[in-house]
């Protein structure tokens, strides 16, 4: 632990940081080192993923699964990457001055930490975002507000963000300096401000979506629905939504090339709960709907979802993408086994009633507690393994236990005294 001289952050099972309330990601960089220039005895954090949020710098070592954080509240000043002949040949460096007491690790009054940006990325854009994040002081807004639902009553979240710039003390002087630096390109600055306005609005939209979700949840309990079953599923859906709100969606804008990787990790965390409820397997299309509803804004495209799922193979996550022969795609737990499903289907199909009449996908769906479409996939897989066979008639598509292997083609009239065929035969003769 001696090496970790910065406060560590809690990570989720798939290696995403756990965010603070109201914390939103704004920039991602790969291959970043954290060094203390003044104190070389402190071992540097080498080649990790740096996430800039509205509240913190978060540095994550993805291969070893740990991370550290620097709260923006303790950052006194940030120095832009130097532009010189020398710097053209080395990795860009962003230096930040930190109030050591804020870190609480026994530093002096101020500490300089250098961020070495080794990856192929845009240091200028990153630095711009650092300034934006520091200027908007989102962590202070959070501290003032008792809860997210009160943001409207507080008189407009957007105003609160822009009025957060204070002109007192050392930080005020520094901020003035920064404004002068910004004014060198006025048109660019205006463009940035538009973007900032949009981003602060986005946060309001998330709050609004959350509110609507809560209203939706309280709605059906008052109104007496005509169809109890439909109501049940609706409430279940809202249960899911409520339990898995995503506070900080990974967006293309914030993650750049790392987008799909981060999305894959976030998705792996997200699907845990719905997957458990669905019995270890869930249709991709269902995940798409649930995931986007949980995100509220910053919706992802089906293509993004597919790419994120495809990346799971490279990560150590407990879920996987599976494609059935029919083309239906599902997400399933790696621990989920077909054998278990087959065993349950076999028990079902050997009941006297099922021996006589077969089972439909909806029968299987009820027994397995899954969607009929998925149940059908399971039945078809069991059929392809030779466990079941099909019966198509005007009454519909049904599955029976496979008896074909149990009949001797050289003696088609004899029923053996034991085995599947004799149990089927006793079932049909018992019915009269």
């Amino acid at each position: 632990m001696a090496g970790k001289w910065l406060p560590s952050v809690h990570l989720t099972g798939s290696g995403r940081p756990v965010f603070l309330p109201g914390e939103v990601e704004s920039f991602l960089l790969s291959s970043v080192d954290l060094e203390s220039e003044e104190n070389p005895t402190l071992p540097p954090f080498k080649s990790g993923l740096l996430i800039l949020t509205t509240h913190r710098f978060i540095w994550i070592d993805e291969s070893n699964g740990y991370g550290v954080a620097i709260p923006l509240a303790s950052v006194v000043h940030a120095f832009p990457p130097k532009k010189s002949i020398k710097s053209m040949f080395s990795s860009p460096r962003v230096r930040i001055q930190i109030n050591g007491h804020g870190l609480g690790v026994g530093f002096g009054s101020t500490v300089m930490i250098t961020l070495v940006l080794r990856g192929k990325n845009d240091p200028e854009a990153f630095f711009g975002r650092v300034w934006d994040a520091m200027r908007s002081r989102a962590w202070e807004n959070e501290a003032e507000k008792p809860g997210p639902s009160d943001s409207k009553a507080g008189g407009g979240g957007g105003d609160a963000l822009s009025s957060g710039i204070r002109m007192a003390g050392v930080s005020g002087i520094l901020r003035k300096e920064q404004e002068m630096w910004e004014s060198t390109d006025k048109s660019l600055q205006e463009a940035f401000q538009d973007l900032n306005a949009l981003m602060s609005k986005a946060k309001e939209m998330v709050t609004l979506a959350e509110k609507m979700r809560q209203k939706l949840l309280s709605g059906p309990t008052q109104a007496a629905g005509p169809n109890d079953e439909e109501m049940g599923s609706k409430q279940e859906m809202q249960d899911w939504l409520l339990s898995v709100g995503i506070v900080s969606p990974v967006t293309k804008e914030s993650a750049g090339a790392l987008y799909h990787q981060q999305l894959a990790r976030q998705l792996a965390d997200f699907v845990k709960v719905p997957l458990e409820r669905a019995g270890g397997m869930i249709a991709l299309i269902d995940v798409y709907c649930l995931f986007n509803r949980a995100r509220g804004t910053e919706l992802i495209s089906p293509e993004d979802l597919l790419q994120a799922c495809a990346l799971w193979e490279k990560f150590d996550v407990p879920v996987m993408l599976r494609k059935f022969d029919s083309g239906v795609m599902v997400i399933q737990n790696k621990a989920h086994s077909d054998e278990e499903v087959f065993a349950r289907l076999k028990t079902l199909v050997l009941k006297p009633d099922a021996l006589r009449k077969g089972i439909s996908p909806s029968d299987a769906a009820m027994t397995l507690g899954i969607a009929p479409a998925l149940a059908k996939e399971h039945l078809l897989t069991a059929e392809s393994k030779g466990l079941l066979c099909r019966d198509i008639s005007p009454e519909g598509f049904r599955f029976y236990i496979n008896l074909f292997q149990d009949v001797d083609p050289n003696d088609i009239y004899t029923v053996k005294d034991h085995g599947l065929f004799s149990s089927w035969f006793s079932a049909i003769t018992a019915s009269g």
Partner: protein
Amino acid sequence: MVGYRHHQRKKTGDEMQKVGDFKLPHFFNYPPYFTLQPVRDTREKQVQLWKELILDYCRSQKIFIIGLDEDFPLFTNPVIERTLSHEAREVFLSALVSEGRAEWIDKGHKKCLILWLRIQDWADCILNFVKENGFEDGVMTVEEIRSGIESRGTELAGIDRTVLMRALRLLEQKGKATIFKGTSADDEGVKFSA
């Protein structure tokens, strides 16, 4: 236990479903038997069971030609309300054709000649018949072989004329028979030379 099993077997024997005087196997009431199975191993087994049943049935009922679009007792089971699709009928009969146990009569695969005995087997059958009745070096008409007193109760009774002619021609090739052509089909004659 033994007594019980014996009893059960007897009971199943009594309840065996029939088409005319033909006893149907129990799996005839198994609905998937009437749906063409898509999985390879299962389908192979299904096809095999259908081939056996078709040959058994045709032999016992002396049926030589199955019309695919006509009512054929095996292709429908009114007890479980299942009927073979046209595709399934063609698959099962084609399986017989590929084994030399059937032949398509027309190019459209509408009619199928069932050879529950191959032509060679029919030829052997005729030779046995000739020997048993002492017709060596004698002369018979084709019609006599099909419906004469001597052939009554033998496999040859009611044999399809085309099948019979092909068997006779096979014998002719081997030098065991000579076919005399008359002015009409009715008076075609055969001279056997054993």
